[in-house]
Each structure stands twice: as C-alpha cells, then as structure tokens.
C-alpha cells in the first residue's frame, strides 16, 4: 500500500468526510471516532511518505494512470513531505483536543462540523501534495469554503461578518491565483508545475510570465494575510470557535507560504524570482513593515486571541521575508518556520481553547489568576510563548536563527532589526499575559497569607494534546539540525547560496 501513500493521504479523509456526514444523520457519536481514525491514517500516510521520500527521493504518483502533463500528477519531495506531516499531525492533535469544546458548542451539528473539519484538512493536504497548478486551486477552494463555514460558527454577533469579509478577500486571492495560472497556461499551454517549469526558462522576459508571477504572488499574499493584505485575518481568527481557530490558524497561512515557496523554487526558478524580477528587495522591506506593524498592532490589543492573530501577521512577515531574502539560510529559515510556526500557533490556540472552555472568555480581564487556576495549561502557554519569542531550546529560536543569519548574509539589516524588534515586542506581549495570570488578583498584603484560587484545570482530553504540542516545540527545537540536514537542505536548489 505504501506506493499509494500520496493519494491515500488525500482520499482517505475525503471518503471519510462523506461517511462522517452520513453518520451525522444516523448516529452522532460515530462521527468523532471516524474522524480520529481517518486523520490517524492520513497522518500515518504522511509520515510514511516523508520517510519514503527521505529514502528514495522524489515520489511520483499519476492519478487516473495518465502521464503528466496530460493527467494530474503528484510530485512529493522533502518539502511536501515535511509540510504534509506537520499538517496532518497538528490537525489530528487538534481534533482530539477540541472534542469537548465542539460537543459543547454545537451539540446538534457535530456531524457537519466534523465533515467540514475533515474536508478542510483534505484541502490543506491536497494543496500541499499536488503537482498541478489548477488542482491546487480547486483544493484551495475546498479549504477556503470549509474554513469560512468553520469560522462563521463562532461568536454569534461578530463571526459571520468576519467570515464574510474573509470570504471576499479569500475569493479575490484565489481568483488572482487562478488568473495567474491562466496567464501561465496561455503562454505555456500546460498546467503541470514541473512541465511549466521546463517550458518557462525560454519565456523569462515575457511580460505575461512576469504578470502571472506577480498576480499569483499577490493572490497567495492575500490568502496568507501578508501585510497590508491581512485585513481579514484578525477578526476571522478571533471570533472563530476555539476548535476552528486552533485548526485554521496554524494551517492556512502556513500552507499558503508553502505554496509561495513551491512556486518560487519549482515553478518559477529562484533565478527568475530573485534576479530577473528585481522585486525581492521591496518584498523583504514589505515583510519588515509586516513584522513591525504586526507587532505594534498586537501591542494594542486587549484580548489574548486577537493579540495572537496579530502575532500571526508578524510571523507571516518572517516567512515571506525569509523566503525572499534570496539565499540559502533565509529560505531554510522560512521553511523551518513553517513547521515551527504551525506548532507554536497550534500550542497558543489550544491554550486559548482550554481557557475559553473553562473561563468562557479570552480578554485580559478573564486571565486573572489563571496560573493558580489552570497551572498546566499556563505552563504549556509559557513554553509556546517562549517559542514565539525565540528562546532556546524551543524551536522558535532556531528558525529565527536561520532567518537572521540569512538577513545578515544578504546584508539586509532592516530585516534583522525587524526580527529583533518583534522578538522584544513578543517578550512584552507574553510577559504582560503572564503577569496578569500570575499576579492578579492581588493578595491582601505583601503576598503572605495569599490564598490562590482553587484549581479548575481543563479536562485531560484537552491537556494531553496540549502537552504533546508543547513537548513537540522543544523536541523540534532539539532536532533542528536533523530537520535541516536531512530534509530542508535537499529542497533548496543547489544554485541558491
């Protein structure tokens, strides 16, 4: 079966989504075990595929048995394999962690919720695994449509509008991408990424190719919420239900960054992206602005979840900037940060989920005294915070290491300063939260006779996944060397120094 991993990881969740949907009408209790089983299979296939790629090199798969470029083909290299594993594992962890909150928030609609959940994961996995530019668009729309619905189920007052705005922006983004693919098709006649890449070198001077590249990039930037196209993200992620925000926030932006890197590295070559088209410097400066503005906006927030969303905006700036530095270290940092940021965001949003589950709010007011109330959740939060700040040995430090190295090598000191600035702002942001959770409510006098609030920790089914993610942050940090040496370095073309 192992030769079918590339398709299993997409089609198993797909088929299961229909079964879950049906099960929702017959017996709701079946939905959750089905979803878990499916995502376990998907995660197993993804990790299995990654190991196969590591051993054998690029894995090809022809869907329908048609050879590319006529049929749709999958090319799985180390980059896909890595991102796939991250997606499937984090979706699985979140699924288990959010069971209780889903059951509490949508007791009647468990079936459709899990259906859309699994379909969203299918979309994300499909985007990552596919080697066909148009197929990517279709899966992108699956991911987006399900995402809109999952988000709109949150806060009754605000979520639908936030989701609708996301839908407008998301549709523009996806349409730009589709248009870019159309421009590529009109000059190359092909939709297969590898095939396009083989035709393009003769056309690098073509205005159509340049425009195609630009609109594709703009479309992706909208989807990944790259400043100044980030407007939809904060509200959408803030007002989403906990289960959705901890699913979508780690995955959507990261997958789009993967797509961007895939287009830079595979479809258009780095030579075209960084040399022929002299925009990389401006993009990095845009990333600098994204990071700085993300950090500043995060400072202005008065609730935890919205603060985290602006941190995502800043983190997107990290990755876009890193990828566009145009050197090996920067690209390594960006790819590594896809993995790390997915885990970090997952950790942070799972914590928010736990807090919402117990305290029913996430504004700073609600966080008072949380360290004594929910010590384990907050312990995991601290690890996540450290990783986002970039303190070793958590993984956030190492991707920042590569990003800063890349910036130094490219002599782009603005980016270095922006990264350090955002780290410092993150220190302020997170220690503000920690302070609120740690000090307030104040004791009567000088801390003596201080009676901490009784412990009211989230259920074990939410804590264990959270701990796994928190431990993952440290483990991924410790194994950074292996990830870079055995996976990422094969992804980046030799020409890129």
């Amino acid at each position, binding site marked *: 079966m192992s030769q079918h991993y590339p398709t299993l990881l997409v089609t198993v969740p797909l088929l299961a989504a229909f079964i879950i949907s049906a099960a929702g009408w017959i017996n709701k209790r079946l939905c959750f075990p089905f979803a878990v089983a499916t995502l376990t299979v998907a995660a197993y296939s993804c990790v299995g595929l990654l190991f196969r790629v590591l051993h054998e090199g690029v894995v090809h798969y022809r869907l329908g048995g048609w050879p590319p470029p006529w049929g749709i083909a999958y090319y799985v290299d180390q980059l896909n394999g890595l991102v796939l594993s991250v997606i499937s594992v984090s979706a699985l962890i979140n699924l288990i962690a959010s069971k209780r909150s889903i059951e509490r928030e949508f007791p009647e609609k468990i079936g459709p919720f899990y259906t859309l959940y699994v379909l969203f994961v299918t979309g994300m996995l499909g985007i990552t695994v596919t080697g066909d530019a148009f197929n990517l668009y279709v899966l992108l729309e699956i991911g987006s449509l399900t995402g809109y619905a999952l988000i709109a189920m949150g806060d009754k007052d605000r979520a639908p509008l936030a989701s609708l705005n996301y839908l407008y922006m998301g549709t523009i983004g996806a349409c730009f991408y589709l248009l870019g693919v159309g421009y590529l098709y009109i000059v190359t006649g092909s939709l297969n990424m590898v095939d396009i890449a083989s035709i393009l070198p003769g056309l690098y001077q073509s205005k159509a190719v340049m425009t195609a590249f630009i609109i594709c990039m703009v479309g992706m930037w909208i989807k990944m919420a790259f400043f100044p196209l980030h407007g939809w993200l904060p509200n959408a992620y803030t007002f989403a239900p906990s289960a959705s925000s901890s699913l979508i926030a780690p995955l959507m932006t990261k997958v789009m960054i993967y797509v961007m890197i895939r287009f830079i590295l595979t479809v258009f070559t780095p030579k075209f992206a960084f040399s022929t088209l002299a925009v990389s410097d401006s993009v990095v400066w845009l990333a600098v602005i994204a990071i700085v503005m993300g950090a500043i906006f995060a400072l202005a927030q008065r609730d935890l979840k919205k603060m985290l969303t602006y941190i995502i905006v800043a983190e997107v700036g990290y990755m876009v900037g890193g990828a566009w530095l145009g050197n090996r270290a920067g690209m390594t940092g960006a790819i590594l940060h896809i993995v790390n940021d997915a885990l970090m965001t997952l950790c942070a949003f799972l914590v928010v989920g736990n807090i919402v589950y117990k305290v029913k709010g996430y504004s700073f007011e609600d966080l008072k005294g949380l360290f004594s109330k929910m010590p384990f959740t907050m312990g995991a939060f601290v690890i996540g915070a450290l990783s986002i*700040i970039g303190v070793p*040995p958590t993984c956030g430090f190492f991707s920042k290491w590569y990003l800063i190295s890349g910036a130094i090598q490219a002599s782009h000191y603005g980016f270095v300063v922006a990264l350090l600035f955002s780290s*410092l702002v993150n220190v302020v942001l997170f*220690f503000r939260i920690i*302070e609120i959770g740690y000090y307030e409510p*104040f004791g009567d006098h000088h801390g003596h006779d*201080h009676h901490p609030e009784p412990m009211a920790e989230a259920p074990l089914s939410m804590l264990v996944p959270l701990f796994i993610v928190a431990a993952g942050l440290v483990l991924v940090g410790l194994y950074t060397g292996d990830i870079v040496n055995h996976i990422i370095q094969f992804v980046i073309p030799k020409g890129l120094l």
Partner: protein
Amino acid sequence: METITSIKPLLAVLVSLLVTPILVSSRASNVREGWTFVAATAKFLIVLSMLPTILKGTEIVYTVVEFLPGAAIKFRVDALGMLFAIVSSSLWIVTSAYSIGYMRGLKEHSQTRYFCFFAFALSSTIGVAFSANLLTLYLFYEMLSLATYPLVTHHQDLEARSSGRKYLLYIMGTSIGLALPAMLICYNLAGTLEFSKQGFLAGTASKPLLGLLLFMLIFGFAKAAIMPLHAWLPAAMVAPTPVSALLHAVAVVKVGVFSVVRVLTGVFGTNLLLSLDFSPFIIFVASVTILVGSFIALTQDNLKRLLAFSTIAQLSYIVLGVGLLSPKGMIGGIVHIAMHAFGKITLFFCAGAIFVATGKKNISEMIGIGRRMPVTMAAFFIAALSITGVPPCGGFLSKWYLVLGSLEAHQIAILVVLLFSSLLNACYFMPIVYKAFFCRPEEAMFKNTVQEAPLFCVVPLVVTALISIILLFYPQPFFRLASMMVHSITGT
C-alpha cells in the same frame, strides 16, 4: 590539551531538573526539602568528581545535539567552568538549608514553586558554567532569566510586579536585542561558536565591527550589571532573601560576569583584544561601575539595596581583572568569583536572618543589634572584611592579585581605583558593624526578647563566614584552577 567524553556534565546540569517533578508531587514539606538536599548534594558530588580530572589538565566534553557545525548544545568542563560550578553547587547546599529556615520562619506562600524554580535556576547556572560554546551559554543564560523570574517576584504584589518588569526588561531586552544578533554575526563571520583558547574571532572582521561586537556582547549579558545596565539588580532585591543571596550574589550575577569573561577569553581571546587595544574600554567601563556602584552603596539605608550596589561594584572587579589582560590580574579576577561569592552570600544571609528575627530591613533601625544577634553580626563582620579585602579573609587574596595585575599592566590609575574603592567598601560596611556592637545600650532599638534567628538560618551563615576565613589559608583549589585557565590562554 587532552579531552575525554563523559556524560557527567549533562548529569550535573540535569540532576536538579530531574528532581522537580518529585518536588511538585511531594505533599509533605519535609519530603520536599529532603529531596532538595539530595539533589543539591548529588549535584555537588558530581561536580566534585570531575575536579581531579580537570586538575590533571584534561577537559571533559559532551555533545548533546548538534544543530549546525560549530553550533551545538555541547558541554565542556574546563578550569574556569569548574571553579564557577564548584562555587555555585556548594553554595546551593548551604542556601537550601538557609531557605528552609527563612521560608518557614516567615511562613511564605507557594514554597513548592519556590523550591522548584530554585532547582531549575541551579541547573541553568551549571549549564552556563559548563557550556562549550556561545549558543549553549546563551540557552542556559535565557533559561536562568526565566527560572529566576518567579523567584524574584515571589511575593506577587505590586512592588514585585514592577521589579519583575524591570528585571525582564533589562535581562531579556539586552540578551535578545544585543547578545543574540552579536552571536549570529559571530557565527556568520567565523562559522563556529565554539569557545577556544585564543578566541574564534581573530582575523575575521575589521576593528570597528569587532568593537561593535564586543560592545554588544558585554552589554548583552546584562546580568553582569555593568553600568548603565545595573538598575535591575537593586530592583530585584524585592525577592526573598535566600533568592537574593544565592541568585544575586552567586548565580545570576556571576553568570553574567562569567559570560563576559567567556566572551573576552573564549570568543575574542586575549591576543585579539591586546592587538586591537580594546582593553582600555573594558577597564574604563569596569572602573566607572566600581566607583559609582560604591558611592551609591554609601547612600543606601536599606541593607539589601546596599548589598546590591556593593555587588554591582564587586562584579566589575572581576571584569576589570580579566580586562587588564595581564596574567595576575586575570587570576585575581577569576578567583574573585569565588571569594566574593562566599563573602557576599554571608552578608545576604545575615540581612535575611535579621529580617526573620526582627522584621527590619533598614540599617538605621539596626543600631545595637549586635548585642542581640552576636553570631550573625560577627559573621557579617567577617564577610564585610572579606569584601573589603582585608585579612584574615579570602577577599584579600583576590584583591592582592588584582593590584599585582594592575601593576603588571602598568595601569597605575587602576591601582588607585582599586584602593579607593576598598576604602569606600570599608566606609559603607564598618559603620553598620560599629553601630551594631558599640553603640550605647540606651540607644539600642531592640527589645531584650529579640533572639538569634532559627538554627537553619544561623548555621549556614556561620559556615560561609568560616569558609571565607579558611579561603585565605587554603585558596589552593581556586588558585590552581584560575592559573590553569590563565596559563592555557596566555600560554605562560
């Protein structure tokens, strides 16, 4: 130089971390504190067991995981690290005993959290001592900052919060804002971060860039409390006294100074510093800190704040000694790590004991206290002598070497600074002792009921005071380690 691979350094780091789950889960306080002792003793024994190997001139290395060539989590035990590790691990045992007396005496809340983070902080300290490269050092440095935050802000009141903010702002602000980019630039220049005998930066960059790096690294490790980045240390004195004692006389500040010493010797190397003529800059910064710190200490009434400023000044002795780049001065500076540690911890213990027994924090309220707490104040006197640098205490030796070093480096101005600051030390310590013992009985501010603090408090401070004296007569291990270190880097 021979090296052997052994897991002992890692064990020494981890032993206190491993015990934290037990500390958390233990319900009885006796069990919890029993385990603290076990961990402290185990740590000390592991460190001590490596001493003979080090004294033989062999180094112990252990690589945990390698991220990049030249940048790994890697331990290397050398003479300098050994000296620091012995000091901090031995003092942990004493402090643990003192903590029990202090925390129980004051019925503090959240004692479990306190002991856990104490253990965590010690792990980080040993990690810094044994780190083989800048990355590992940075890692444990940051861990220490985080582990000490809950300790500094233990009281969880408004004052603790503002001090905690200041503490983090200074410590993490500088480490992320200055040390981290400096480290990355170093790595990009040299392709490695491994400390070496002659530094790894030689010949990699121009003088202005190296100067910038030196600046960033010295001020990036703000735990060394070099002015103007010293303000966190007095603020951090809101912590319970054992924390101030161990962390702000030994672990935290010494980690800062240790990091600076590592940067000067292992990253830049003495030859590079000499050839680039950076020594005057370091000496200037250190001298200013010594003098200004001592002057401010003169004006303090709160005993712990006075000790804090005294610490700021004394730390710069170490930087000064190493910055002189003369062998004797370096030996003096490095040995001062140990001498100052034993002296200053005694002083803090005394301040804490007074607080436990009387609840007083200010010097002006301590007139006549020597009659009520003679043992404590006798120890205070001995330690004050040690810090001032007067025999019969160990502090004399390190200062003597510093003076020799300044002569060796033909820096007469430094000689003046050293002597003058010793005078200042005497000026701010001796009045306390005088008022404690020799004021007239009618001036005494204490009732006859005031007694010595609990035994758990008194015994540790007596022990450390005695060690201060013993170190004058048997300073051999520390001098041996310091001179091994200096010989290995200067080659003489």
